[in-house]
């Protein structure tokens, strides 16, 4: 009988019509500005620069190695290395980026900069409402706008950040142990040297 399939289809739409009033899985719309989905940990929007401590300039992890600039597929990162050095979190003097610009209108959120960064200095943000009326100024993020604290990083990607922090802490501990060992070795050597120089005073003095 012609019309059977049509009636079946109409029954289906009617079921959906009434179902949408009673079943949550039939009406999945999220009323966006008022309601929001719970944040997704793996989400990524655009990169930002992580800093430790309070002062973003002091604590910036980036050492301007320019690897991300080279690896960035759409070439949206622009870095200028500083002339001088500043101490990093471990107290080791490092270069820092004098300029660090990301053009987020070019950036395609691929996360490759994050993967290639050996210093865990650049990470992906989750903020998406970055629209701006100014194509060039508003979407070209400079160093200051890119810098976000480690606490912020921990708050948006807790699992990942914990792993990174553990890795960095281990690294720091290793460095410290190494430094300590070096210092001990140095002091031991000094002591030995001193002992030697004391024992053989007649030779004395470097030639």
């Amino acid at each position, binding site marked *: *009988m*012609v*019309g059977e*399939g*049509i009636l079946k*289809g*109409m029954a*289906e*739409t*009617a079921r*959906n*019509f009434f*179902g*949408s*009033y009673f079943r949550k899985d*039939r*009406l*999945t*719309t999220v*009323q966006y500005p008022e309601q929001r989905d719970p944040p997704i940990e793996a989400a990524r929007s655009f990169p930002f620069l992580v800093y430790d401590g309070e002062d973003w300039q002091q604590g910036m992890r980036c050492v301007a190695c320019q690897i991300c600039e080279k690896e960035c597929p759409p070439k949206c990162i622009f870095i200028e290395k500083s002339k001088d050095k500043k101490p990093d979190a471990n107290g080791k003097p490092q270069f820092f980026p004098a300029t660090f610009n990301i053009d987020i209108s070019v950036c395609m959120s691929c996360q490759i900069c994050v993967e290639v960064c050996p210093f865990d200095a650049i990470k992906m943000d989750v903020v998406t409402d970055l629209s701006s009326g100014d194509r060039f100024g508003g979407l070209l993020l400079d160093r200051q706008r890119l810098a976000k604290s480690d606490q912020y990083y921990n708050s948006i990607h807790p699992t990942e950040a914990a792993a990174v922090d553990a890795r960095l802490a281990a690294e720091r501990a290793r460095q410290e142990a190494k430094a300590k060992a070096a210092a001990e070795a140095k002091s031991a050597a000094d002591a030995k040297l001193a002992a030697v120089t004391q024992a053989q005073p007649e030779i004395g003095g470097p030639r």
Partner: protein
Amino acid sequence: MTHLALLAQQLDQIFVLAAHWLLSDLPAALQPLCSAILSVAAIIIVFATLFAITTWLERKGLGRMQNRYGPNRVGPFGLLQPIADGVKSLTKEDIVPITADHAVHFLAPVLLVAASFMGFAVLPIGRNMVLVNLNAGVLYFFAIGSMMELAVFMAGWSSRSKYSLLGAMRAIAQMISYEVPLVLASIVVIMQAGSLSTVSIVDLQASYTGIWPHWFVFTPWGFAGFILFMIAATAESNRSPFDLPEGESEIIAGYYTEYSGFKFALFFLGEYIGMFATSGMAITLFLGGWSAPFSFLTWVPSYVWFFAKLLAIISVFIWIRGTLPRLRMDQLMNLAWEFMLPMALFNLFTAGLWHFLAAGSLRWLVCSTMVVVPCILLSRGLKHKKKFQVRTYHYSQ
């Protein structure tokens, strides 16, 4: 009891009485004219409001069928959405193609709206609520209805756009083809009522046996006529699944591709008003016009019933739109000429037989058979010719 009945009657006639009261101080010579103007204004306001409500209802209903909310930002439940849409279309730029025939291009939407409103002149919206009781009312209605085809073709031709032209050609072919079954389907009612006057057709249906009304839809030929009329009315008002003239996935927007801003809105208005008018005619012819569905509900004002029936039909239109894909041109024509037309002709015969047979279950049996058998045979014929079926599939080894 009589007091309540009187109240109900007054409520029923409140608009008629109000108009009388308003015009009673005017000189007698001016009264008919002013009465007409008042009624026309009322019709325009009421149905334009109904248009706004329908657009909201349609978007809401489609939304729910598609598991989304529909408009819900402007006003409570998005009720002010039609106003926002109106303001938007008023403030939009009105673009007329350089090569278009400006005068005709401008006139087409105006004519469409005017023609679609004119049909309401003969529709009895309530008891004693009809603008003019023409004794050729049904004839007038269909004559006015064919003016809409002219407007559509004017729009398509004057735009000088290929898509508009394709749309206009489709519209003409479709509307003319479906006018035949539309009229033939309504003739059965005229045969039975013996009158072309819409008022007497409704009056005839507004009586009851027990609690059941004498609507024509509750007879075999009336039911078949109603279904045929509704299918043809869907096609006449270019509604899905017969929305080929404006099939947006094929020919952009058909004949109003080159319209924008308020003229575009006028086309929408015209189409919806046309849909109300044909639905109103279906109600008048088959669903007893303003009469109540049960005898114990006659105290509800008559115009309420009319609009309730109208909204019910509109809801079905929306439901169909939310479900069905569009037909193709040749299929549309096949349906009109190979199913609708023979069916309508058979139906004429059935209605005649009904008239001459004595009332009783035998009459029911004979006439029902005469409706069902051709319907099955004709649809079998449609199906057989196409050989379409649900297929079974095999899998690779």
